[in-house]
């Protein structure tokens, strides 16, 4: 760049990049030797929050993002404000020095938060990312596509699971550690926070389905409830009769339910080591497992026949559930 002044603004630089600058003077004889080099780092590009993968509960949220930069940055900062308070007078809380592209932040229950992320390097902070809004009512999770059996499709909003009439693959998938291969199932990503989590599943009474929880490393070649790493409620509909089982390690109690639920409430209680199922429409308790959760579990869902399941989360725990 040729300039006549003793200063120069250099623009259109790449973000998150180290540049060396030096100056030479020039007269009719030619250029001077180069000055000493000076090194500057440009600030990074803002990250992109993965809004579909946010996991939250009443006390915390797990946020992850893409760096937004090809090269590594030094750290990330998460900024959050409670959405009701207007921007200038609202308090912005910052979590700084985050080394990886994810952060578990503590929040207050029943609030709405606006969250931004910035990347940081020696050149300074990036601009704010696009915001996401997080509601700390109930627990929110999305289905994990990587666990999804090939015969299931997940809706755009990540909350409806469909098994269509026709199989798209003629043969059984190969065994896998992450993806369900025998049981036509999918797992959700529930925030790794102990405490109580509640969600609901809308079901079709004429469809065979299974809903419950499982450890992340549950054998993906097994049926849900067939091992000691999963607990679930299974519904079978045959000859106009409904059959219900509550399965863990292939065992079920002998239970008869006269009104078949259309919406099942599921309460995962880490504190009391229990997993409970309810007919959410009539506030009826169906069954409670006493379980040893030695680490975190995830919601899981399967469809044994074509049909669909619709998940509702972010629901405050209903009063009747509190008795269990």
């Amino acid at each position, binding site marked *: 760049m040729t300039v006549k002044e003793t200063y120069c603004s250099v623009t259109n630089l790449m973000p998150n990049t180290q540049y060396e600058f030096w100056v030479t003077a020039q007269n009719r004889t030619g250029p001077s030797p180069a000055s000493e080099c000076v090194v500057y780092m440009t600030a990074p590009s803002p990250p992109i929050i993965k809004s579909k993968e946010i996991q939250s509960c009443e006390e915390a949220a797990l946020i992850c993002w893409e760096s937004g930069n090809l090269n590594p940055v030094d750290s990330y900062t998460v900024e959050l404000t409670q959405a009701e308070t207007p921007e200038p007078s609202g308090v912005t809380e910052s979590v700084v020095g985050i080394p990886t592209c994810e952060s578990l932040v503590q929040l207050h229950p029943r609030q709405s938060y606006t969250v931004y992320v910035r990347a940081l390097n020696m050149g300074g902070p990036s601009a704010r990312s696009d915001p996401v809004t997080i509601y700390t009512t109930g627990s929110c999770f999305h289905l994990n596509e990587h666990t999804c059996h090939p015969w299931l499709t997940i809706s755009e909003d990540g909350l409806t699971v469909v098994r269509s009439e026709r199989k798209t693959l003629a043969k059984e998938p190969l065994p896998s550690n992450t993806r369900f291969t025998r049981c036509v199932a999918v797992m959700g990503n529930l925030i790794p926070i102990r405490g109580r989590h509640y969600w609901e599943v809308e079901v079709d009474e004429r469809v065979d389905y299974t809903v419950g929880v499982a450890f992340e490393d549950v054998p993906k070649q097994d049926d849900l409830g067939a091992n000691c790493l999963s607990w679930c409620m299974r519904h079978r509909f045959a000859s106009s009769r409904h059959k219900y089982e509550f399965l863990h390690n292939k065992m079920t*109690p*002998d*239970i*008869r*339910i*006269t*009104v078949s639920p259309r919406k099942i409430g599921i309460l995962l209680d880490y504190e009391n080591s229990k997993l409970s199922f309810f*007919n959410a429409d*009539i*506030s*009826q*308790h*169906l*069954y409670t497992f006493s379980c040893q959760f030695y680490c975190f579990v995830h919601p899981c869902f399967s469809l044994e026949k074509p049909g669909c399941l619709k998940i509702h989360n972010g629901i405050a725990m209903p*009063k*009747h559930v509190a*008795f*269990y």
Partner: protein
Amino acid sequence: MALKQISSNKCFGGLQKVFEHDSVELNCKMKFAIYLPPKAETEKCPALYWLSGLTCTEQNFISKSGFHQAASEHGLVVIAPDTSPRGCNIKGEDDSWDFGTGAGFYVDATEDPWKTNYRMYSYVTEELPQLVNANFPVDPQRMSIFGHSMGGHGALICALKNPGKYKSVSAFAPICNPVLCAWGKKAFGGYLGTDQSKWKAYDATHLVKSYPGSQLDILIDQGKDDQFLSDGQLLPDNFIAACTEKKVPVVFRLQEGYDHSYYFIATFITDHIRHHAKYLNA
């Protein structure tokens, strides 16, 4: 109506009492047990009625079921009446253990010599609640009922014959279809006579078929090793089928290894108390 306190024992911070009174329906002196939880010292509590089974008095439930801790924690007043009128000197009332004394079957008898005294249905649904409401810190709007065996039958029919009166109902090994079992045929034949249409008015399976009322949430526990189940005295399948047909919500749990005894009741009593607390404390 004068109440005479027979006994009082502190239990889980509350008081287990037994009272005696002159019953108008039964024309004799009757005892009943009543547990007042700690919360009853300062406010009115919901009332939960327990109906016992054949041969029991007001003592069996309060000494064997272990219900006190749960009742104390949930703040429920629990009332357990006797199972039949006593000391009426009716000929034949002590001849068998499943008819007469200790076997009132919670009906209002229409036949002689039973009809003057054997009016347990009216006693349980009218006289006793009125007495309790007038003399103890209970909320008359919040009442539920449960029981065992003959008392399970009693709880189911009281709830089904009085829609809206009870907030919830539950039972342990209930006699679900008395018109079809030996116990029921003997009792109804003796108390109600030979006209079987009068029997159906006290049969839970029949009552459900024409139950018009608001939603009931029924919890039933049944021991799988219960000899009376295998003897065909209890017939829960008939009741479940009728409830499925009429869409009356029931959760029926068949409990592996359990029999008909108070050991079975004690195992699951906390679940039942919680079931009622959910509706009574709503």
